[in-house]
């Protein structure tokens, strides 16, 4: 399936999306396609958001954001997010704030079919004083029925769609990752269905040679899309490095509304799919720079599952 088809079939206006990644494996190909298809009123979530969420917010696709953190990392505060929250450009998104402990636990609860989960953080701070669209259901403070101690409960999250980028998957969607996980596994499994974007599609037999790496099984997966370079300007371990110079380019572009629009025109609207994206990248920066991002190889020792 193409990303165009996957997003058209499975992402609808008003949906609640989990979008995985942690600089490691952000599904940028899917994010660009969501913007191209002009999806609206989305609720988006993941722990530690970055330039990918900033892009969706700036493009006007987002109504609500269940957040723990958003920045451009090395390049400072997230420009579109700030413009939205501070000035209402293009509109003011609603933000519900959690933390990098509580949000992954809420996704874990969703993935496990639990209604809520106790967490030990957030108490005593102003994070309990601010409530947005989740209102009184942002959290509940109770005395533990076991020992009477004050206990914070946060609700399970069940997104309509989980979108992740992985190193490899088979054509039915058994999805395998290695390297930094963020909240990818729990967020994807919490969702009603999953869109898997991958660096390469491999055979079911290849998956079976190292099945412990699989984080999502095929029966949860609605679409599989092969998108090499799909996490750029983020990285995929074993495939390519993070692109810091592109991060700087995005920071400079997103400093102004006009610059941001020009960025969208060049890198999202002016491009049909990930193949064209790679071609445009090479045209713009040269093959040497593209090649320089490619990972070296340093294979692990093969493991054997035989008995």
């Amino acid at each position, binding site marked *: 399936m193409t990303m165009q088809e996957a997003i058209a079939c499975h992402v609808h206006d008003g949906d609640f999306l989990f979008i995985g990644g*942690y*600089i*490691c494996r952000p599904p940028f190909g899917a994010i660009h396609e969501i913007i191209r298809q002009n999806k609206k009123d989305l609720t988006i979530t993941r*722990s*530690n958001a970055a330039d990918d969420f900033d892009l969706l917010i700036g493009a006007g696709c987002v109504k609500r954001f269940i*957040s*723990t*953190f*958003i*920045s451009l*990392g*090395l390049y400072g*505060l*997230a420009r579109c*997010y*700030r413009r939205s*929250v*501070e000035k209402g450009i293009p509109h003011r998104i609603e933000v519900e*704030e*959690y*933390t*990098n*402990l*509580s949000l*992954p*636990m809420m996704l*874990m609860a969703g993935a496990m079919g639990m209604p809520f989960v106790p*967490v*030990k*953080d*957030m*108490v*005593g*701070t*102003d*994070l309990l004083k*601010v409530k947005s669209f989740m209102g009184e259901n942002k959290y509940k403070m109770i005395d533990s029925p076991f020992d009477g*101690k*004050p*206990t914070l409960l946060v609700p399970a999250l069940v997104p309509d769609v989980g979108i992740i980028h992985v190193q490899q998957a088979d054509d039915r969607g058994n999805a395998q990752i*290695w*390297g*930094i*996980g*963020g*909240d*990818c*596994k*729990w967020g994807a499994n919490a969702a009603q269905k999953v869109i898997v974007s991958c660096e390469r599609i491999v055979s079911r037999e290849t998956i079976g040679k190292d099945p412990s790496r699989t984080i999502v099984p095929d029966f949860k997966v609605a679409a599989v899309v092969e998108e090499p370079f799909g996490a750029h300007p983020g*990285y995929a*371990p074993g495939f390519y*490095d*993070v692109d*810091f110079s592109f991060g700087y380019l995005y920071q400079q572009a997103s400093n102004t509304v006009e610059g941001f629009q020009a960025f969208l025109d060049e890198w999202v609207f002016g491009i049909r799919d990930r193949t064209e994206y790679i071609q445009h990248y090479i045209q713009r920066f040269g093959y040497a720079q593209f090649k320089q991002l490619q990972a070296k190889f*340093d294979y692990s020792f093969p493991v054997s599952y035989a008995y």
Partner: protein
Amino acid sequence: MDTHPNDYIKPELMACCGAREIKDFDVVIVGTGFPTMSANIAKHTHAKNASMMQESGVYDARPARPALSVGDPCLNPGAAMIGGLVEVMGLFLQRGWVDVGFLSGSQVDRYGNINTTVIGDYARPASRLPGSGGANPIGALAKKVLIIALHDRRSLAERVDFITTPGYIDGPGTREGWGLPPGTGPEVIITNKAVLRFDSQTKLAYLATYHPGTSVDEVRRLTPWDLEVADDVHETEPPTAEELRVIREVLDPYRMIRIYEKRGYV
């Protein structure tokens, strides 16, 4: 050779102040920049068995270049364990295994509360900051917390605009009242002018040591509350020759630490 060379820059001194708070065998959760530098200095000097983790899911990374974020590609090859947030923030931090957490904040107050959410009113912010990320749970659950801050009347506050991360909150007993683990809380605020510690009774930050080149009076003038001064207040020990060798030859040969001078840590 001089045991305390005087050609160091202020960020090097601050990194060493952080390193000296880390004990051998400590389990440390680090962000990038000062925390990583401090933990590595400790590991190469007095705390060889200290171990580090990043909230993104990495334990005991062996990066071949300085990590520029907690999700940096260089943290992957060579690590002892990689999972995700549920592993590091849940299995390790919430379960109580983390000895030292290391945080910085746009705004820090006299109880060691940290603001990384918003400057001004929450609903109509003058400046919207990134949010908690891992800071709140680290401040809540690490056994001791080290805080890095700029020392001026804007970055330090009598009361932060928004408590993102708990220090001693409203003072003695507040953390315990909320059910946070006993004995946890901020240990020091390391600034570019001084090291502040917390009074065991009042939980208020007081001046413990002032850095070479400044004075008790200057530090008090730059602090927006009436800063108490320790009876044994003295000058901060400058970086040792060995600490500087580790920073310059092993950890940071390209002197990336200089970017902190541009950010005001002078």
